[in-house]
């Protein structure tokens, strides 16, 4: 039995304690916005926030998370897609296939929470998620837009 606080709600799940948080979120909780990409914390498609910190949930056993820790998934980032990062993503038409974008957005939101006015170097060092469609330049521009920074900067 594990108790998890996800998007402000407490969930009790019966699950092998070694089960990665990703699979508990997807299969027990039923929130499929968080994606499986590699299972070894390489690609970042599974990124969620644990107490506000971007975390690759595929490689974190559910037993490592306590009820007191606040887990936020893409579904809980905002009630209606109104987070500045989500709005910037829509405004710049960032996604292509979109599969990696939940993780990308969660990584971007965590970056901005920690560094509200990131430099280009901050963004390029801070966003390490893989996108095979190659949306990187629009990701960078959208983070700048969400931060209220001119893309020319």
């Amino acid at each position, binding site marked *: 039995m594990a108790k998890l606080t996800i998007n402000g709600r407490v969930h009790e799940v019966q699950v092998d304690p070694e089960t990665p948080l990703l699979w508990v979120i997807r299969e027990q909780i039923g929130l499929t916005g968080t994606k499986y990409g590699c299972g070894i914390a390489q690609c970042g498609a599974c990124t969620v926030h644990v107490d506000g910190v971007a975390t690759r949930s595929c490689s974190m056993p559910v037993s490592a998370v306590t009820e007191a820790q606040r887990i936020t998934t893409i579904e809980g*980032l905002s009630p209606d897609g109104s987070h500045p990062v989500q709005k910037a993503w*829509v405004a710049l038409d960032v996604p292509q*296939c979109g599969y990696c974008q939940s993780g990308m*957005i969660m990584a971007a939101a965590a970056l901005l929470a920690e560094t509200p006015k990131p430099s280009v170097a901050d963004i390029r060092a801070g966003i390490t998620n893989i996108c095979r469609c*190659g949306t990187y330049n629009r990701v960078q*521009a959208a983070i700048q837009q969400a931060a209220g920074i001119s893309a020319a900067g």
Partner: protein
Amino acid sequence: MNAIAPLSRRGFFSVSAAAGAFTLGIRAPLAQTASLPGATFGGVPEINAWVVVKPDDSVVIRIARSEMGQGTLTGLAQLVAEELDCDWAKVTTEYPTPGQNLARNRVWGDFSTGGSRGIRESNEYVRKGGAAARMMLVQAAADAWGVAAAECRAAKSVVTHTASGRTATYGSLAVAAAKLTPPATIALKDPKDWTIAGKPLPRLDTVDKTTGKQVYGADLKLPGMLNASIRDCPVFGGKLKGFDEAAAMARPGVRKVVRVGESAVAVVAETWWQANTALDALKIEWDAGSNQAVSQATIDATLKEGLGAAEAFVGNKAGDARAALPKAAKTVEATYTFPFQNHATMEPMNATAVWNADRCEVWCPTQNGEASLAAAAEAAGLRPAQCEVHKTLLGGGFGRRGWQDFVRQAVAIAKEMPGTPVKLLWSREEDMLHGRYHPITACKLTAGLDPQGNLDSLHMRISGQSIIAGIAPQMLQGGADSRVFQGLNPGGAEGAFGYAVPNLLIDHAMRNPHVPPGFWRGVNVNQNAVYMECFIDEVAQAAGKDPLDFRRALLKGSPKHLAVLNAVAEKGGWGKPAPAGRHRGLAQIMGYGSYVAACAEVTVSPAGEVTIHKITAATDCGHAVNPQQIAAQIEGSFAYGLTAMLYGECTVKDGAMEQANFDTYPIMRLAEMPAVESIVMPSGGFWGGVGEPTIAVAAPAVLNAIFAATGKRVRQLPLKHADLRRA
């Protein structure tokens, strides 16, 4: 970054096949209406196969091709909407199913999505679908008013009688229009009059991708569904000898261990995590077969032998290169190699199936819905009419999802559990070890210069794998695979070789290893452009000429090739001083019906570290349906092509692939992505593709810039093996 046109953004667009998968249940209601001549959509009659207009004026445009990120869904909708003269803000889309297409005599044409063909191949008939629907809506209004249709005009989903000013909305006319006979002759608009097509409109499918609502195949949930993970023999061509299921069956949630075909075994459990961990616990015995003797070294040796082989298939020939080369004032020779690549779509292969004795349904991300239907029927042991496929949005395709291996497996597993939906999801490792790999080739080029330094003779020998021989040998022509010569053809609309060389021979010694090949974004233009464009740079250097001037002289008779090259040279600052430490390189090619060129700007540090600062890219795709999405495709193609150039390499050991995840198959990330300045310069009069062509020019432009920076030619990819340190 291209600006997005300030048009109103629609709040919510659903791709019904994907989102609807939750609500369709096991039996799709749409499938039951598919064979009816007057098919209806939620009680609303369709005007034709492409267009449904609902009473509230919303427009549903049917999209036959698969959306996998490339934007075809939006682009095709723009083309239909343009001719329909509907209000773009009221447009939604849906996928018709492969079963419906079968039942309606393929009214939607080809579902196959690859080769950058979505728009260039279907633009005419989808535009006619939109135009015919508009003509019927106008006719319905004219009939109601007792006037001639020619006295009425349509705009933004409203028909107006010009003389009287009377108006009627499409929604009010749709039922009457649907009863009319379709027009016999349909005139299409001149693209210069377009107001919806040709504009940089926002995509129709963005919002749900930013909130987690978008449902991919891997996310599908059906009532009572179980989950499966599979392991196929890691050695291609090997077989499953046997397995001891005791340890796996003892694990929580496990329902069944299933042999799948001759070479694979799957575990079915309540959750995928349970299935996959139980699969790890399964004791499997493989019969690896004779291919376990194959290594990268044996494959490389075969290719090397092909470089000098006497016999080869000729792809392009002019004059007599073999006779001219020995007489050249100066010769240049170089050998290049390009390794196997994996598609590595972000969403691993998956399919969900439910099998019953008289019916089988499949939900899957596929680039070819009809091929999925055929594969499902074959695996189910049923007729295609007893089966249905529901396409979901694809989490990347790049060619991989044209193959149906995962569909066959899912159906085979579901057949073992009648009536129970089973979702098969491949682990990343399974996905990497059972790809359809970009073919491996090597290339030897020999050039002869005349005393003035002009290119007089050129022999390009490609040695290596044919995709067609691997997937459809019946399509070989006299044993030859013409697709090997992509971008090198003597002429034609697909990929004409632009350079005029008096004595030219381009030929292919086919050498096919056991590794299954596949179409990988850009397919053979990837390595052909590296081989030719890097070598042309070498020849220019040997001739003591500027790489741009040298190319220009060879492209005098190819004005469209020349135009994109000139565009990137001008915008990329060729011939002007670069910022300190930066160096530039050029490349051009024609592929998928489009003319493309790139100018790259790089720095190489004394320690040999490469920074790709910027690539200026041009494409002449004839007609540009959505310029901002073309720009997105150019950027995306560069990320894909540069990943291959920097890191991409699958190698064979004991008959199997060595790279099983992103730790050993690295992917370019944001920190390495160059700025991309896109020049979309459609010259009209033809339709070229946009998803793939530009991928070809990124790598050679960067490699030529690296030479400019270091004096070193990188001829063996990926670049990670090259030593670019300067003493």
